[in-house]
């Protein structure tokens, strides 16, 4: 078992605590105390599972990456909508094998999730360096094939791709 990162523990506990406040909606001190205790306890119990060590430096860049991703989602949603509403159904689905140079596991997770979140492409299998992507047609898979998405994510994570 890896040593528990106290930063990560606190982060988890804070997220849980925010969820607690949101669900209870009460700022009574006994409720807040109960919530803090419960979230710390849950974060501590679950601390052994996560393979990721958080890297706080990339968070700002990740948040900047999200609007771009959202614009791509809107773009491809409109494209898939046109495909579905077309009476001839002009789709040519196929499986792509996409090699990725990303070495950071969090980066691969972000890549796979972004691909799946974009309509028209879906990650079917993730290996260490290969993703099998199912696409609806060639237009919707353009971002993946041209490596644009991967480039964006690589720039989010910086060039420090050395840590596996």
């Amino acid at each position: 078992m890896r040593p528990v990162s106290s930063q990560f523990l606190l982060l988890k506990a804070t997220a849980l605590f925010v969820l607690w406040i949101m669900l209870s909606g009460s700022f009574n001190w006994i409720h807040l105390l109960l919530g803090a205790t419960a979230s710390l306890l849950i974060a501590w119990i679950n601390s052994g599972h996560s393979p990721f060590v958080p890297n706080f430096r990339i968070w700002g860049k990740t948040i900047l990456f999200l609007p771009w991703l959202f614009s791509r989602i809107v773009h491809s949603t409109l494209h898939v909508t046109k495909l579905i509403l077309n009476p001839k159904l002009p789709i040519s689905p196929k499986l792509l094998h996409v090699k990725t140079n990303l070495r950071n596991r969090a980066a691969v997770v972000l890549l796979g999730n972004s691909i799946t979140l974009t309509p028209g492409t879906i990650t079917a299998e993730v290996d260490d360096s290969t993703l099998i992507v199912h696409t609806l047609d060639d237009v919707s898979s353009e971002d993946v094939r041209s490596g644009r998405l991967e480039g964006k994510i690589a720039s989010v994570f910086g060039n420090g791709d050395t840590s596996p």
Partner: protein
Amino acid sequence: MDVLAVIFILAGLFFLVVAAIGVIRLPDVFTRSHAVSITDSLGAFLMLIGIAIHEGFSLNVLKILAVLALLYLQNPVIAHATVRAALRAGLKPWQREST
């Protein structure tokens, strides 16, 4: 304010209708999962933003945004798990016969 909410909700409804049509029309699991992901990405987004505008600013808006974030985090995971299970179970993706 309400006009804006109505516009957002109707736009969301449009994408949900398109997704339902896709789920009926498309030929196999893999292609249908694309149709479902339209719902998850833009339909739910527009719909929930519309409701949030209708509600006005309060703690509820924060909760709605949290549900939205939850949807955005979990739907790709579910879709990926389903499609991966389908692929590993040996389902062959549908292809057009003419090519």
